[in-house]
């Protein structure tokens, strides 16, 4: 018994619309990923240094914080941050006597904040692992020529840490890019949100998800290639550092 009935008819026109709408919002997704990663890398490096040098109190505090962050699902973190935000934003506006409405504020910064918190345990561990892999003699040689710790980190250690951590950082970049799709659940307009937007009129959502998936696939492949290129180009031998 052959059935000619197809469960779901793809609406090609809708798929095209969804792709167009998704691509229009690609800059927002890239903004989320790039700024989220930039903050995550900066914080991650600082956290790694604090933990590497075992600064009292701060180091223990950060270890606990990282454990909590690692154990929090991204979705949960997003919901919590957005709830805390929406229940306090009116108070903040009133307190500072600002002449804006909550709806006027672009929520993208919340997405950036959550993405950077979500990837931070990963980036800081990548940096810490790379720091731990550096031979003690690199530090001693720097001190012996009269460098301060700051100068040593800037000119010798960090230039060696970055190439070592690069493969892991590139993986995290792709992970952050994919995780950025979650922020559409709190109403931030990006690729996912954009792709689903035209679907609402048709009550047909599969096209929207396929369009979003296609965009994420394409970009992930590009990013992976970029990551491989960076990993092979950035080498300790070429990483001069600032002088």
């Amino acid at each position, binding site marked *: 018994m052959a059935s000619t009935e197809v469960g779901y008819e793809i609406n090609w026109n809708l798929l095209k619309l969804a792709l167009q709408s998704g691509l229009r919002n690609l800059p927002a997704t890239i903004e989320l990923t790039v700024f989220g990663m930039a903050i995550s890398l900066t914080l991650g490096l600082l956290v790694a240094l604090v933990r590497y040098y075992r600064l009292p109190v701060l180091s223990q505090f950060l270890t606990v914080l990282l454990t909590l962050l690692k154990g929090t699902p991204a979705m949960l973190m997003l919901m919590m941050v957005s709830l805390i935000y929406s229940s306090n934003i009116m108070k903040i506006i009133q307190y500072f006597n600002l002449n804006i409405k909550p709806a006027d504020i672009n929520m993208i910064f919340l997405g950036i904040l959550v993405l950077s918190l979500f990837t931070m345990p990963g980036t800081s561990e990548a940096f810490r692992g790379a720091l731990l892999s550096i031979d003690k003699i690199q530090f001693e*040689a720097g001190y*012996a*020529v009269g460098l301060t710790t700051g100068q040593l980190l800037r000119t010798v250690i960090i230039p060696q840490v970055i190439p070592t951590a690069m493969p892991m950082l590139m993986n995290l970049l792709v992970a952050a890019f994919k995780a950025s799709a979650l922020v559409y659940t709190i109403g931030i307009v990006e690729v996912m949100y954009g792709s689903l937007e035209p679907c609402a009129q048709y009550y047909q959502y599969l096209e929207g998800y396929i369009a979003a998936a296609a965009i994420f696939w394409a970009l992930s492949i590009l990013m992976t290639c970029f990551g491989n290129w960076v990993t092979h180009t950035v080498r*300790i*031998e070429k990483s001069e550092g600032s*002088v």
Partner: protein
Amino acid sequence: MLELEHVKKSFGRLEVLKDVSLSVQTGEVVVILGPSGSGKTTLLRCINFLEKADAGKLTISDHTINLYHAKRNEILNVRKKTAFVFQNYGLFRNKTALGNVALGLMVSRKIPKAEALQKAREALDWVGLSDKYDSYPSQLSGGQQQRVGIARAVALNPEVILFDEPTSALDPELVGETLEVIKRVAKTGITMVVVTHEMQFAKEVASHVVFMEDGYVVEEGSAEDVFSRPKEERTRQFLSRIIQPEYSI
């Protein structure tokens, strides 16, 4: 010029330096000898605070500081007056030979870049590495790396250079070229403290010899005296085992 008084250092329960005092005059080449584990290297590392001594005083060019309670800027000052040549070369992996020599000049000594690079080139020429300016440590042999290490120390124009077993990690064939360079450094009249196991070399360069064992200085004196007329039985024993008139199988 450089004086150490009552230096003590323990690693956990192990007392490596029990009570060591040492005096180095300007222009002297002091060679520290002794069996493994006698504390030679630790003593050297305590001088520029790569190791923090538990007690003791250091006087360098009329400046006395407490080795245990030294402040950060005092430590930095001592490090700027000294240079260190490591057993395992300790070259910066992310810098070329030229960058390795120039880094300390530019960043620590604040010498302008062009001048620092010029000094670095001269130092590398002097150790016979004119063709290796742009080579990274990973592209150099052990002997070449160690010569870069020596150039780095000499270029800083320090008051004293500390050598920590500079040839121990080298392939036997490369020991000679490195020792030749160190002899050239000694001839310039710069003050040196050398920890080594190369007895022949020690005899050639030393003006003063210190024999250490078990965290104490057992004997010290002019190179001539210690090598030919050791006073202590232990020194005699050590030297007789190491320096044999001829090798026989």
